[in-house]
């Protein structure tokens, strides 16, 4: 997993609540192999109209956001289906972080396992961020994981909370499966105790 430390990049404002993972990547792409570029499927039905033409109203189609690497959205971003493809689509398109007041639990968990940082900030702060991004299209936001701080376009700093273990895994690009495999002796002890209890 690619480590995440500090990122300064254009932020894409999606001023919508409950952006579900079906919108992030429609179900008809879920059988595609991970080797595909899932960035091509990102927000597919929001970016394109039924006739195949680009939807100019969706911000990702605005040239100002083509290089965006941070998403800013309203509450409950990534709710719904557990499809990890939603994270893959954001990641393959170049995104490495999302900022929202809350996230779908499974999406947030999937994100952390793919080098993608979900940042929870208070609803008023996110609203303010969205306003700043609307006012100055293509503005950059900085996400500093070590300092657990987001720097808004106006320079204001906002601290965020993150689980200590998740932070370490992201900073170091740690592989959780590899780590857990070193603890299998404890798992085996648990299994032995459990089978004793059941008989």
């Amino acid at each position, binding site marked *: 997993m690619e480590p995440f430390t500090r990122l300064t990049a254009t932020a894409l404002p999606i001023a919508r609540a409950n952006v*579900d993972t*079906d919108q992030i990547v429609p179900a008809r792409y879920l*059988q595609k192999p*991970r080797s595909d570029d899932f960035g091509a499927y990102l927000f597919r039905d929001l970016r394109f109209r039924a006739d195949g033409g680009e939807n100019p109203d969706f911000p990702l189609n605005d040239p100002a956001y083509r290089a965006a690497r941070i998403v800013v959205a309203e509450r409950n971003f990534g709710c719904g289906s557990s499809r990890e493809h939603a994270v893959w689509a954001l990641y393959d398109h170049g995104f490495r972080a999302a900022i929202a007041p809350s996230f779908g639990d499974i999406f947030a*968990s999937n994100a952390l396992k793919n080098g993608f940082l979900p940042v929870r900030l208070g609803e008023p702060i996110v609203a303010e961020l969205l306003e700043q991004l609307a006012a100055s299209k293509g503005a950059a936001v900085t996400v500093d994981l070590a300092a657990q701080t987001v720097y808004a376009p106006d320079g204001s700093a906002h601290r965020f909370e993150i689980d200590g273990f998740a932070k370490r895994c992201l900073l170091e690009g740690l592989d959780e*499966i590899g780590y*857990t495999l070193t603890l299998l002796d404890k798992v085996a002890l648990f299994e032995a105790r459990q089978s004793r209890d059941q008989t």
Partner: protein
Amino acid sequence: MSNPSGIAPRVRRTMFDKVWERHAVLTRDDGQTLLYVDRHLLQDGSAPAFEMLRQRGLTPRVPQRAFATPDHYVPTDSRELERVAEPEKRRMAQALADDSAAAGIAMFGLADPRQGIVHVVGPEQGLTLPGMLIVCGDSHTSTHGAVGALAFGIGATEVAHVLATQVLWQRKPRTLRILVEGSLAPGIYAKDLILAIIAKIGAAGAAGHVVEYAGSTVRSLSMEGRLTVCNMSIEAGARAGMVAPDDTTYAYLAGRPYAPRGAAWDAAVARWRSLPSDEDAAFDREVQLDAGDIAPMVTWGNSPEEALPIDACVPDPASVADAERRAAMERTLDYMGLAPGTPLSQVAVDRVFIGSCTNARIEDLRVAAGVARGRRVARGVEAWVVPGSGLVKAQAEAEGLHHVFREAGFQWRHAGCSMCLGTNGDQVPPGQRCASTSNRNFVGRQGPGSRTHLLSPAMAAAAAVTGRLTDVRPLL
């Protein structure tokens, strides 16, 4: 670990606490707990997880704790996998068969009458038992909490993690008790109850929480009804939903193929009786509802929280003060093709889908058939019934329900996820409106441009025979 005296202090614990503690292999100082997984359910979306294992040179560590059945990519008009048009999609179902066989994981394949939607098959087979910790790479794994298990959906990397280790890292969620008291009136079902709950607390209302559904209304629900309620916990953002096991649970599970038998069954029931939350156990939050206030519900928008009683009207964005929320509602009504102020009971439908892990169990089909009996599907409406499993289908046929549906003009199909999300090609065409017993009314969920209204099986059957969203109660 424990106190030196060896006498446990009197701590009042919730059911969730008890199941969590029983499965904690270790808890680190930073609050992360390594949880043991009793049952790992797999479906035909699992191919990426097996691929991750192969890339690491790993194999499933405890294959006997895993169980597989294909549901997302299987055809529902026949049992021939070739009926799924796209080779890539067929390969997903085939990959599950190949990966399961290679790992020694039990699987009910397409030719097996026990195949079905994994969240229907688990409880039906007794693979889902009280007190278990169950995971599956599908968000509707919350369904299994209806028997008093802790069950939640995980992503592909976590599926690979569980396959490789049989454990999973989690931070302990908070608890939310949803207390519902009173009787559901005739024509009001578990689906109406959970839609009313989500409308009340919101699509993120239970985020970060495990919900325990309690109260006299929940106690009097059948197992099927409890499975419907727990199934949609994820639509309120919950990590999981649970109902305390009781005699309804034991009567449902007794004699199921994978449930314990004889003395082992008696011992298990004795253990399970200690699972319910202790009296006065503290929950982080509590929400209360009165069952008497609940009417037949239907969604009008693109989030399950956008649900209203059937006698309500499509909401008016003009009445919303906040500009951003007003714009969001306008976008939703535009997508849904609905005019503000239209009575929901005047909204005509093109399709009806009775199926999915939410509402495709035998009780759901009995209720829907009760409404369909002696009536005809309205002209121009295409109505499908997709049983949740091969065994549900067989039971329904033994009761003659398939004749009722067919005579009324419904299509009677084979088990699978089908039109809930259309991964197998069963989709609602663009612009068409579908009354659906499934769980998500998201933009494009049932196919690009599809318009979904979530409702109960009785309400879906009523929509089929009248050609519009309608209050089922006069038809009962």
